[in-house]
């Protein structure tokens, strides 16, 4: 185990902006496009993704370094990571149902669907590929979650604005314009990469 030499603050900043999981790596797009219609749900989902990402990144790191690598079972990582993510989402779902019925209803089907949100599996796999240490994993997981959250909030705010303008041609309304918007946002975020690149 040889964690890369990168400061925690840089990693945190990079995971939010320069290597934004959504806009630089294009992971977790489905719910990003679907939920961003509504700002309130986007906020809830962003929070849920952040929580699940942080927890699963940490749990998967522990399993990776204390079970899979010592037992030479690295080829099982995809299955194991997904099982862990599914279990964490289940638990989170129960807790949200209990704590806030309102949030539970707003998130609806997208809460269980976090299980198959690529961003979450992606972060666990990046952690493995880049050989992060435990603290780095925590920071990276949390940062990526925040990055996802910021990106979806930004997109849903933009969509809310564009919905109001009457100048959008009929053929571009809805997902058409959303796709173009996402492309422009991605370019803006990639612009940050000149400051700091994390690989």
């Amino acid at each position, binding site marked *: 185990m040889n964690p890369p030499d990168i400061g925690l603050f840089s990693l945190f900043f990079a995971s939010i902006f320069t290597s934004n999981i959504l806009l630089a790596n294009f992971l977790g797009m489905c719910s990003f496009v679907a939920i961003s219609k509504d700002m309130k749900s986007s906020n809830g989902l962003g929070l849920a993704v952040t929580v699940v990402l942080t927890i699963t990144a940490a749990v998967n790191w522990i399993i990776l370094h204390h079970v899979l690598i010592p037992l030479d079972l690295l080829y099982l990582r995809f299955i194991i990571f997904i099982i862990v993510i599914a279990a964490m989402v289940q*638990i989170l779902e129960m807790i949200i149902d209990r704590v806030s019925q309102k949030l539970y209803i707003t998130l*609806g089907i997208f809460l269980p669907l976090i299980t198959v949100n690529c961003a979450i599996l992606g972060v666990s796999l990046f952690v493995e590929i880049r050989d992060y240490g435990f603290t780095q994993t925590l920071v990276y997981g949390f940062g990526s979650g925040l990055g996802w959250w910021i990106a979806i909030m930004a997109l849903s705010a933009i969509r809310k604005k564009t919905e109001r303008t009457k100048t959008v041609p009929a053929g571009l309304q809805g997902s058409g314009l959303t796709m173009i918007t996402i492309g422009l946002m991605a370019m803006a975020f990639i612009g940050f990469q000149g400051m700091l690149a994390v690989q």
Partner: protein
Amino acid sequence: MLNPAMLIAPLSIGAIGAGLAALISVTDKIVNNYGEVTININSGKKEMTVQGGGNMLNTLAEQQIFIPSACGGRGSCGECKVKVTSDIGPTLPTELPWMSSEEIKENVRLSCQIKLKEDVELEIPDYLFYIRRYTCTVERISDLTHDIKEVSMKLPQGQSIEYKAGQYMQLEAPKYGKVKEPTQRAYSMSSAPHEPARIEFMIRLVPGGIVTTYVHEHMQEGEKIDAIGPFGEFHVRDTDAMMICVAGGSGMAPFKAIFNDMIHTGRINERDCWYFFGARTAKDLFYVDWLNELQEKYERFHFVPALSEPEETDDWDGETGLITEVLDKYLKMPELANAEKEGYLCGSPGMLDACMDVMREKNDMPDEKIYFDKFG
């Protein structure tokens, strides 16, 4: 040779899976333990303490309070509505298709979709307290017409049922053939309340209908069948207004109960009653002799059968035409037109809507004086 290394992979997946499952069930125990909750019905009329976490419909049924439900709690019939007076959160998306905006404002909820998480206060119609499940014995099955059977049932020894003439019960057909689960459907009782130890139904065969097919093709005399009830708001209001009763097919059932009840109480001599019965041909008519007899015996009772498509062999000299036309013709007669009237209708939705139009639009009967029982 078995290589022990081969066991490592399944064992570790198994162990991790088991660990996560244990974690989930522990969380479930902690998070979903709602303890005991109190249900307060009709501001203190009935109060019960139950184990929380279950859905309201089933929990109430365990407490012997049966909210009407045709689908058995799957959220697909929209009948198990109750009014919740305490705050239990917003209406769920699974309830919305069944709710009018007024009901949402009044916090009417589908009891099968509500998980009991906290103390709750609700309002239900008083008659729901009297609803019970009776395991009846089928006494007699007889043919009324080619597609309507009359089924008479005896309540269990020593039990009796209290209801108003015109109300209905849910009959539960057991699983049979391709039908994999017991199925409930609503049928009006044709028996009168003064004989509380037996109940009677008129059941028309609906092609493809689960319960009607069971009754027509499988049910045997002597077998046991569950009936839950009584339900419904279809009963005679206690006024002196003239009763305009309209029925078709097995819609006869509540009226047989109502007329027998009026004979029993003597009310049949005290108010005018017109009974319009619509059928296609003479072979769809039944109980005509009995009704004609009533007409002769009781001065204020009038029976008007009408055939829409009499066959030549029917030798029919009564009213001919759609029941709506006949109804309209009679309602325009001065004797009926000038009287204060109440409408009572029972039959298929199409017939009912057309007859209600005749009553409301063409003959100025007020909406709130028209009572009906629509077959779903």
